C-alpha cells in the first residue's frame, strides 16, 4: 500500500525474519535470486555469515509453502 | 482470464459466511452477475470447482442470475438493452444512456447445512 496517499491494497505485505543454517556464499546468492523470482516476493535480504534472512512478500500472491520450498531446494534449514 | 480472480473472491466470501454460521457444507451459492462484467459463466464454474476442492464449498452449486445491461436515455427517457458497449441512445442524436442495471457482481445468498 502507498503509505503517502493511502492507495493500494489495505491488507498489506508480510515481513518474515528467518534464522537459516546451511548457506554458502554462492548458495546465499542463489536463494536470494530464487526467492525474489517468486511472484509475491518484493524484498529479500540474506546475511550469509549468520543466516539472518528477511523477506517481504504478499501472501495473496505467494504462499509460505513456496518460500519454504526454495529453502528446501538449496538444502537450507530455516526457522522463524 | 479474470474468472479465476472472481472465483477466488466468491470462495472467500462463501467460506467467511459459512464459518460465521457454523456451516458443515455449502449446498448452493446464489450470484448476481451483470452483463457488463463480461464474465464467462463456464470458465467461472470451472475455476470455482478447482478452488473449492477440499473446502466446505466442494461440490457446491453456483446459481447465477444474469442481469442484463440496460440504460435509460437522458434525452428521450426510453430504456434500451445496451449492445456491444455502445452507450449512445439508438434513437436520439447525442443522447447518452445512464446505466440502470448490468454492473452487479455479488454473492447474493448461500444455502448451507
Amino acid at each position, binding site marked *: 500500500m*502507498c503509505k503517502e496517499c493511502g492507495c493500494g491494497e489495505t491488507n498489506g505485505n508480510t515481513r518474515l525474519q528467518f534464522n537459516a543454517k546451511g548457506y554458502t556464499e554462492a548458495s546465499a546468492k542463489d536463494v536470494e535470486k530464487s526467492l525474489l523470482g517468486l511472484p509475491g516476493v518484493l524484498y529479500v535480504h540474506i546475511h550469509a555469515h549468520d543466516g539472518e534472512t528477511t523477506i517481504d512478500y504478499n501472501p495473496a500472491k505467494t504462499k509460505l509453502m513456496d518460500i519454504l520450498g526454495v529453502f528446501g531446494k538449496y538444502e537450507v534449514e530455516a526457522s522463524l | 482470464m479474470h474468472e479465476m480472480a*472472481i472465483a477466488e473472491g466468491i470462495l472467500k466470501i462463501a467460506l467467511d459466511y459459512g464459518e460465521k*454460521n457454523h456451516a458443515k457444507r455449502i449446498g448452493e451459492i446464489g450470484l448476481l452477475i451483470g452483463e457488463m*462484467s463480461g464474465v464467462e459463466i463456464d470458465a467461472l464454474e470451472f475455476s470455482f470447482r478447482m478452488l473449492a476442492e477440499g473446502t466446505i464449498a466442494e461440490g457446491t452449486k453456483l446459481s447465477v442470475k444474469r442481469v442484463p445491461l440496460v440504460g435509460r436515455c437522458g434525452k428521450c427517457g426510453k430504456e434500451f438493452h445496451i449492445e456491444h458497449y455502445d452507450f449512445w441512445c439508438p434513437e436520439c442524436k447525442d443522447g447518452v444512456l445512464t446505466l440502470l442495471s448490468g454492473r452487479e*457482481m455479488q454473492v447474493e445468498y448461500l444455502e*448451507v447445512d
Partner: protein
Amino acid sequence: MEIQVMKNILGENDRIAAENQAMFRDKGVYVINLMGSPGAGKTSVLEKTMERLKGELRMAVIEGDLFTSKDAERIEKYDVPVIQINTSGGCHLDAAMVQKVAGKMELGDLDLLIVENVGNLVCPAEFAVGEDAKGVVLSITEGDDKPLKYPLVFKESSIALLNKVDILPYCNFDMKSAKADILALHPGMKVVEVSCTTGQGIDEWCNWLKDRVAEKRRG
C-alpha cells in the same frame, strides 16, 4: 438454511477494470498501460511509437497527468486520437477514470490503445485499468538500483524499456547488473534497451506491440 449475503465479489477498482477488459475484448482493442517515473521518457517513447506504427496499426492514446495537457498536445501532432485525463492531484489512473474516457472513443476502429499513466513508479502498479498488459519505462539516468527498490512495477509489467541508452557513457548505470536484477524479480521478462534520440530499440518495441495486437486478434 439460507443466508443472505449481498456482498460485492471484487474490490471496486477491480470490478470496473473487469468491465473495461470485457469492453476492450468486445471491441477487439489491445490495451497497454505504460508506467514509469516522471521524466523516464514515456511520452517520448510514445511519440516514436506513433511515428513508427502510423499506417500499420490504428492507434489511440489516453494520457494521465495531475495537471496540464502537455502530453496530449505532443501526441496530437501525430494525428492520433488522444484524450487527456487530469487527476488534479491523484497519483495514478484508476479503472473508473479510464472507463469514463474510453466510452468517448471509437474503440471499434482501433487496434491498439496505449494508456500513459501518471509519472510514478509506486502506485500505478497496484491499479488495473482493464489493460491486456503493463509496460514500464526506466531511464538509465535514474540509476541501476531502481528495479530492486520498486519491485512491484517490474513484476507486474510484461515489458521493460531501458531508455536513454545513448548517454550510457556519461552515466554510472551498470546495465548488466540492472538487467540481472530485473530478471531476478521477473524471470523471463522482456527487456529492451531504447533511445528516443537515436531510435535504438524502437523497432523491437513496436514489433512486440504488433505481435501482441495480432495475438489478441487471433485469440
